């Protein structure tokens, strides 16, 4: 390394030092600490006592932990593909040259500006079984079905019925897909016009153009949104926490891994146990991201490659 290169390196490090220091102090250090504390009996104030893998052994037989994992997996398995499809379809529609396109784009983006706590509080009432707007809108449909089939079906009590509570949260989260839509829209602007022109000359239909041109070119963006959705879904916390008033929901149906982690860390002061849950959550997200990366290698198209 020449003197000039060394000077450049020093300058570069100096300029990036605020981020580097922040990362080391507020990300890497807590990450390593939580890894250590996950092997300790630790209640925040008492001195951590090393207990090996006991916390992990306890987790393995903790029915509530497994329930939280199942709830989170169900939520992720539904919310990620649903969010992906809805945001992609919205982006494709909002990319059409229609009058008032800017207004529509703004309208669909607006909900994602609402803070999560407000979103949770708002949808708590929207999904109220008796007074909520959602069931108000569904009531005529149920009346029609009941009239036709002679049944006595009623709209679900979203947040009080354990079979529907997770769906209630999924709809709420779906309301904030605006961010993903904007990212897709940005990606859509990068699709080369000449590809569409060539397809037009070949007589391709709108669907063929979407399937064979738009989606392949957009695939890196889809991959990005999928990974972000994966991380976001496994970290879902604020919305169900607000919607249930800090509880686990009916029949613990809204006990997610993050909720259980938070309860153990800050309600029960089992910080070591909470750290172990955090480590497991990290491993799940890390593993699934690797799987997503491997699966996407064949299907993601990078123009620069």
């Amino acid at each position: 390394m020449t003197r000039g290169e060394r000077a450049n390196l020093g300058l570069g490090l100096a300029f990036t030092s605020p981020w580097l220091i922040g990362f080391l102090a507020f990300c890497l250090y807590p990450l390593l600490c939580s890894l250590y504390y996950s092997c300790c009996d630790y209640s925040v104030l008492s001195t951590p006592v090393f207990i090996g893998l006991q916390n992990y052994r306890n987790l393995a037989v903790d029915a509530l932990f497994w329930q939280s994992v199942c709830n989170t997996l169900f939520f992720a398995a539904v919310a990620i593909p649903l969010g992906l499809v809805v945001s992609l379809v919205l982006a494709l529609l909002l990319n059409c040259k229609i009058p008032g396109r800017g207004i529509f784009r703004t309208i669909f983006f607006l909900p994602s500006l609402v803070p999560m706590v407000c979103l949770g509080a708002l949808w708590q009432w929207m999904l109220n079984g008796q007074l909520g707007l959602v069931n108000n809108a569904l009531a005529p449909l149920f009346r029609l079905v009941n009239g036709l089939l002679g049944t006595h079906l009623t709209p679900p009590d979203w947040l009080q019925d354990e079979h529907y509570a997770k769906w209630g949260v999924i709809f709420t989260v779906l309301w904030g897909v605006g961010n993903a839509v904007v990212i897709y829209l940005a990606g859509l602007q990068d699709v080369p016009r000449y590809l569409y022109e060539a397809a037009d000359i070949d007589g391709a239909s709108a669907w063929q153009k979407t399937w064979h041109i738009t989606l392949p070119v957009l695939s890196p963006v889809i991959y990005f949104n999928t990974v972000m959705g994966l991380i976001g879904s496994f970290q879902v916390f604020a919305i169900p926490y607000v919607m249930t008033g800090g509880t686990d929901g009916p029949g613990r149906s809204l006990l997610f891994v993050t909720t259980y982690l938070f309860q153990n860390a800050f309600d029960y002061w089992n910080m070591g146990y909470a750290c172990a849950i955090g480590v497991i959550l990290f491993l799940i997200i890390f593993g699934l991201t690797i799987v997503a990366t491997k699966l996407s290698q064949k299907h993601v198209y990078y123009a620069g490659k």
Partner: protein
Amino acid sequence: MSNSLKTKVVVLLCIAAFLALIFYQPRPAETGKITLQYWEKWNGFEADAMRAVVDDFNSSQDRIHVEYTSVSNLDRKLMLATAGGVPPDVAGIYGQLLPVYAENNALTPLDALAAKYQIKRENYINVFWDMCFYRDHLWAMPTTPGSLALIWNKKMFRDAGLDPDQPPRSIAELESFNERLTRHAPDGSLIAMGHLPTEPGWFPSTWGLWFGGQFWNGKDKITVDSPENIAAYQWIQSYPQRFGADKILAFRDSFGNFASAQNAFFTGRVAMILQGPWIYNFIKNYAPADFEWGVAAFPSVDPSRLKDVTWVQSDAIVIPHGARHPEASFEFIKYVESQAEMEKLCLGQRKFSPLRATSPDFYKNNPNPHIAEFEALARSSNAHITPQLTIWNQCDDAFGNAVTQISTGNQTAEEALSEIQAREQDEFDRRLSRWNRLAPTLTAEWNQP
């Protein structure tokens, strides 16, 4: 100076300025006074009541000054601040958290200071002093207390042909009143109920008390699945069985928030509820002006054996571990605990006083017309404090979930309670072994003069 050197100097200066901006804290002006930081969990009028006492203290002398801050989610922030070595000097927490805080060494024991300032058990209603005592040490002083009682809507009683001044005395009587007060719409849905344990359902873990049940044996065994507790939760289970789980769910969905004019109790949807003296504030703010209510001991399964059963709570004032001025902090606490200031505080919060002695004016001036009934319950020999368990938070959460499961017909009382029993006994055993490990060090520290 070369250009690259200049750039380096500029960059370093920028970093230094950035760090200085982050870490600079102006020094407080020297006044010669000891300044105490007091964190209080309340906001609104309850916080104002304590603020008035703090103001009195500050103007009463010139040696100590108390800075009063209302802090949200104090129970979490106080523990973390104490762990971080920057606790306030004094804090107002919920009394039921004392075992968790004490066993985590987050508090300063007050035995020596209380003895020095002649503060004794005899000055207090027994349960409130006992609540502050844990593992042979005194950790707090009680401030504003409460007791749970049956609150009933007199108009609903009158409309149902019941004597509005005669509340039920036993569970059997409560259920016969319930039959009279419950009304159905032609389609079978519920319009009003005499009693519904889940409305408002704030105390899901307490129901066993009115059936003679206890939560633990006081030493090492959880007794959640005792026959008395099972009987209590079978009574809860009888509600979905008698009225229909779906109908109750739909009925509850039609209620507004507790702190609103649409509260089920104020709107004549539920006639009898389990609540404490704070209900007065909600009635004053949200109930119709002509709302008539009564207060009595909540009925027990056997009133001859279980008379005036109640569950009591109290706020507590503590000195966190590592506080800089424990002696000055206790001087402030002693001031708060004086009869005149305690009555001012409790009047401000519309509660009764935890002190044994109260001035005649206290009841006269208290806007809560039923304050004496609540206080009498706290003095009962069947008044119970929250079990002094470090696993109380998770137990309470588990009971909340159990009541939901039982009320929706998803679990029987036996299933729900045996689940809690197994889980919480395991957790309790773990905490006990942690305590046994820490006890020698902690007790030695606590016993230091």
